[in-house]
């Protein structure tokens, strides 16, 4: 018992130290900015075969940073999270193939527009759809928060189609290819790059982008003037000396395999595993770390909530019921966004994604744990407490010596169940950009378009971990019963 406690303590401390280190790492003299990006937006932003972030945006940014003498920490996440992180002050700048619009100008200050783009629309190769009017009663897949989505919505009434939303380009394309949706609207270069990459779509307006407009690098309005200045200065320079044109040509002119790895590596499960072993391992480690720390802290918090829930003090009981009600009621993803994106603008402090994710898990899983812990204590026969009290033991001693040990035994199956749910719930935190197993899968798929194989690999890894976790739990359960 003592040994396990010590072990848990070490795990928790290690984890906490790690957050501490990531928080303090920016104390250098050269300005270091936190830049967010959309992790799955080729050719502007995506991971190459070495799991490095690359693309037109990334090369522009890297070149400018080198020239202008600043460093940055890149935070890849979903497009929405990327922009909201900056508008809420969580991050300093965003470069994510973001179109400059009047609406966004209200929230962001943009650097010199760096790429002229426009909206394109595409259908499945071989589709019978010829024009926008053929979209009547069909479904159009759009990516949340993009100009393509805005445009599609603006003409939705006129052409009478339905829309379905996605956070990730690759899933979106597959939806069209599989026929769940019949068309998609998005940034023209992005769709063209995907098509060049072998995505089975046909671009309908390659020559005439709709609402042609510019991409911009954005910072929170009124903040980070220095960063913006550096960006503009550097951009003017690379535009003049031809570096910019080279970068664009490299991505729009090159074949996909240059960046995404050769066919052989992508056409078999083994090949994908080999090509991405370090990415999978890193993702798995993040998932495990999140799970283990969350399981421990959520259990502690949940037991506390449960003890409060059966307390003699009506105020504590009420508090416990309220906390359980709130955090069990909130969808995990809403809670994660609230903590990661909503809270920092109020408390004026950045919250690292990992910490935000961990707190989310603790609050949510802790609430479920609290509910079954309270139930477990209530399931212990009332006579046990009366007998303990009648001997002169205080309420606290009676709880510790008699009720809690019996209650915990009743709760063991619920705990095991909750551990497994916690492991699975970590995947939801990919939404705030934590590079855990699921997010790792998304990134790899966005590069190699091997959805079936990659997701099968990810699924099997989860099953293996869940099996191990179940074995471990059952072993612990047997030992406590003996």
């Amino acid at each position, binding site marked *: 018992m003592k040994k396990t406690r010590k072990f848990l303590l070490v795990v928790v401390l290690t984890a906490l130290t790690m957050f501490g280190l990531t928080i303090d790492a920016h104390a250098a003299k050269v300005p270091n900015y936190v830049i967010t990006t959309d992790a799955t937006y080729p050719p502007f932003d995506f991971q190459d075969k070495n799991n490095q972030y690359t693309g037109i945006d990334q090369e522009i940014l890297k070149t400018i940073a080198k020239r202008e003498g600043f460093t940055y920490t890149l935070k890849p996440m979903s497009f929405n999270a990327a922009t909201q992180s900056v508008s809420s002050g969580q991050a300093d700048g965003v470069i994510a193939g973001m179109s400059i619009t009047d609406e966004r100008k209200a929230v962001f200050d943009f650097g010199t527009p760096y790429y002229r783009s426009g909206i394109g629309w595409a259908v499945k190769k071989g589709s019978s759809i010829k024009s926008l009017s053929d979209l009547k009663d069909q479904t159009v897949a759009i990516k949340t928060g993009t100009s393509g989505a805005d445009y599609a919505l603006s003409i939705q009434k006129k052409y009478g189609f339905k829309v379905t939303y996605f956070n990730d380009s690759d899933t979106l394309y597959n939806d069209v290819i599989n026929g769940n949706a019949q068309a998609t609207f998005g940034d023209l270069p992005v769709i063209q790059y995907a098509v060049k990459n072998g995505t089975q779509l046909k671009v309908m307006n390659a020559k005439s982008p709709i609402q042609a407009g510019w991409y911009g690098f954005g910072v929170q309005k009124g903040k980070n003037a220095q960063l913006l200045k550096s960006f503009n200065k550097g951009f003017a320079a690379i535009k003049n000396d031809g570096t910019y044109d080279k970068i664009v040509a490299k991505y729009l002119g090159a074949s996909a395999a240059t960046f995404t790895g050769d066919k052989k590596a992508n056409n078999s499960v083994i090949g994908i595993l080999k090509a991405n072993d370090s990415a999978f391992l890193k993702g798995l480690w993040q998932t495990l770390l999140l799970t283990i720390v969350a399981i421990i802290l959520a259990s502690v918090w949940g037991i506390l909530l449960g003890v409060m829930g059966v307390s003699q003090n009506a105020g504590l009981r009420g508090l416990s019921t309220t906390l359980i009600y709130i955090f069990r009621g909130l969808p995990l993803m809403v809670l994660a966004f609230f903590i990661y994106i909503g809270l920092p603008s109020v408390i004026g402090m950045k919250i690292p994604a990992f910490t935000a994710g961990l707190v989310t898990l603790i609050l949510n899983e802790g609430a479920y744990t609290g509910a079954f812990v309270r139930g477990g204590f209530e399931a212990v*026969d009332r*006579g*046990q407490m*009366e*007998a*303990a*009290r*009648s*001997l*002169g*033991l*205080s309420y606290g*001693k009676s709880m510790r*010596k*008699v009720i809690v*040990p*019996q209650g915990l*035994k009743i709760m063991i199956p619920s705990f095991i169940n909750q551990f497994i749910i916690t492991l699975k719930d970590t995947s939801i935190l990919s939404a705030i950009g934590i590079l855990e197993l699921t997010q790792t899968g998304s990134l790899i798929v966005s590069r190699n378009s091997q959805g079936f194989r990659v997701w099968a690999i990810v699924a099997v890894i989860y099953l293996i971990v869940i099996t191990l976790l179940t074995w471990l739990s059952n072993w612990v359960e047997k030992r406590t019963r003996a």
Partner: protein
Amino acid sequence: MTEAQNKVKVHVEKVNKSYGENHVLRDISIDIAANEVVVMIGPSGSGKSTFLRMLNQLETPDNGTIVVDGFDISDKSTDINKVRENIGMVFQNFNLFNNYTVLENIMLAPVELGKMDKAAAEKKARELLDVVNLADKADVSVNSLSGGQKQRIAIARALAMSPDVMLFDEPTSALDPEMVGDVLEVMKNLAGTGMTMIIVTHEMGFAKQVADRVVFFESGKIQESGTPEQIFNAPKNARLQEFLSKIMHA
């Protein structure tokens, strides 16, 4: 009567208790002397358990005074845990701690409350197991015991705190008939040692044999009390007469 017997152990004065509309105890007053064995009888729902549980504050009275062992337990500032150390209670359903062995059940309170160190507590526990004739059960789990054995362990557990007063709430009601005798035997021996005992029971034979006084509860009131001869052979109260005739014919 010796002087010690004159001493009042339990003093109850004008105690009332209601559960909502249900007025369960009405103006109860009674004094119980040291070394006295009092048996409480009465129909179901008459308030016997409520009365007994009030003597160690498992229930709180709405008003009135309860003094046990010189401590006014109806006074909020009294440390009830200290008072409870001197009042043993035995429940109808035994309530042995399921997460401990027999020996641990008996040792728990003395050790946790700092009355004895572990070694002394174990020695005492084994002595008590001898007293209740269950020395061979020291290390078994309580769930493997029969009802009669459980109740005798429960008595030993209460005695481990060396209480001055023992409360019994229908200690044999949940037992198979053949187990009842063993438990009553232990209680009879305990009465012989001079323990102050307050016992709720339907065992009229036991009451006749062991009780110094029998108290008849009905509708939340003490309707009549007296020696076993007075209560069983010459009941005055009409409800008591009716109650006795019912149980004699049962």
